[in-house]
């Protein structure tokens, strides 16, 4: 399957097959107006199958949330048809407002209007801890 290259925008490549739709929903894209291509289960020499997202005329994305969703993906920034920057995503050190704390004894369960904040403990196990109560969570088990 072929989708035309873009002039300006971003290409998120090497997305774990099946995760593309979830990533797309976190990008805050207006699907009524933005030009978006989601390619699912593309063949990839390295990974077997992968998803790819291409978005035209968007250069500002929240890499923190993306890294948390799929730390194996890469983000390519394209300007005037040329690759100007390539970023390999990684697990963010600090995540605000993405993971919710499930500890019923945590202050986040009663206090309105405070952000849920998680800090990276161990990149190998993808373990995070709540900044308030230290409850740990592994992001892949969410």
């Amino acid at each position, binding site marked *: 399957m072929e989708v035309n290259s873009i002039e300006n925008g971003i290409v998120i490549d090497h997305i774990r097959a099946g995760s593309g739709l979830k990533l797309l929903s976190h990008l805050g894209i207006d699907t009524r107006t933005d030009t978006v291509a989601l390619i699912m289960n593309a063949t990839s020499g390295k990974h077997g199958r992968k998803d790819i997202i291409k978005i035209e005329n968007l250069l500002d994305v929240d890499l923190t949330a993306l890294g948390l969703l799929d730390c194996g993906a890469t983000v390519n920034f394209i300007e005037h048809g040329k690759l100007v920057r390539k970023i390999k995503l990684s697990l963010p050190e600090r995540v605000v407002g993405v993971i919710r704390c499930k500890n019923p*004894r*945590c202050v986040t*369960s009663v*206090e309105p209007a*405070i952000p849920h904040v998680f800090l990276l403990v161990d990149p190998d196990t993808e373990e995070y801890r*709540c900044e*308030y*109560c230290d409850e740990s969570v592994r992001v892949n088990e969410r």
Partner: protein
Amino acid sequence: MGAPRGLKGRSLLEPGDFTPGELAELFDLADEITESPERYAEVAKGKILAALFFEPSTRTRLSFETAMLRLGGQVIGFSEAQSSSAAKGESIADTVRTVGCYSDITVIRHPKEGSCRVAAAASDVPVINAGDGGHHHPTQTLTDLLTIRREKGRLTGLRVGLCGDLKFGRTVHSLIRAMRVYEGTEFVLISPQELRVPAYVIRDMEERGCPYEETQDMRSGMRGLDMLYMTRVQRERFFNEEDYIRLKDQFLLGAEQMRWAPSSMIVLHPLPRVNEIAAEVDADPRAVYFKQAKNGMYVRMALICALLGLAAR
């Protein structure tokens, strides 16, 4: 001698917030206040401490209030959530922000874990965590450390025994976290199988390369200890009554057990105790748990001075 300069304006939310160097300065100040209390009797004149106790804890509240009064300052606050605006549904952040307009320093105790962090974020004045649920109680840890330093003359090279409920005992977890940074610390963990320390506490010790042993036998565990930290094995921690009855007497400290202990081994307990230390041990010079309570007041006096940047004239 002045207050430790690096601590002025800061908050104390968990035991690891201060470096060993900052703690040493704080304990030096506590010693100085103990020796010359008259030089500190008016340093907090004109200052107000707000004690916000969303759950009752008479012992801790009195310790803070006494500390502030002995420094010449004044105290406002409430001692249970029912009498506060929290009963009307006000958020912690709003309560703390409002009270911060009246006071120079805020002490908060709240049943929810991490509540002190919400308070500190909302407050313009220093915040001291006086217990956030089962999470942290850093001034208890400061009290324990000051007591050890005073009784043993050092915080390094100690063989530290902890006995009883090591699973749920938050003071135990905090003390391990605080002691593991000192050179040469070794831990002996004496508890029933069901109440062993949680995995993250084991990880705390391993991260620092601290040697530790786990045992269910008090007698062998006490060999070579410099100090023994006792906690209570509570009935409600057991699923069945039989296990509780089988185990409850194996982790009690009486005169007989004290005969197994080294002559220089001090005994600490966060208090209140029930029956885990027999009254007959109280007269033993190695029992220092009542001195701990007094040290708790001095260390809180030092802490208030340090966070407010108060110095003796």
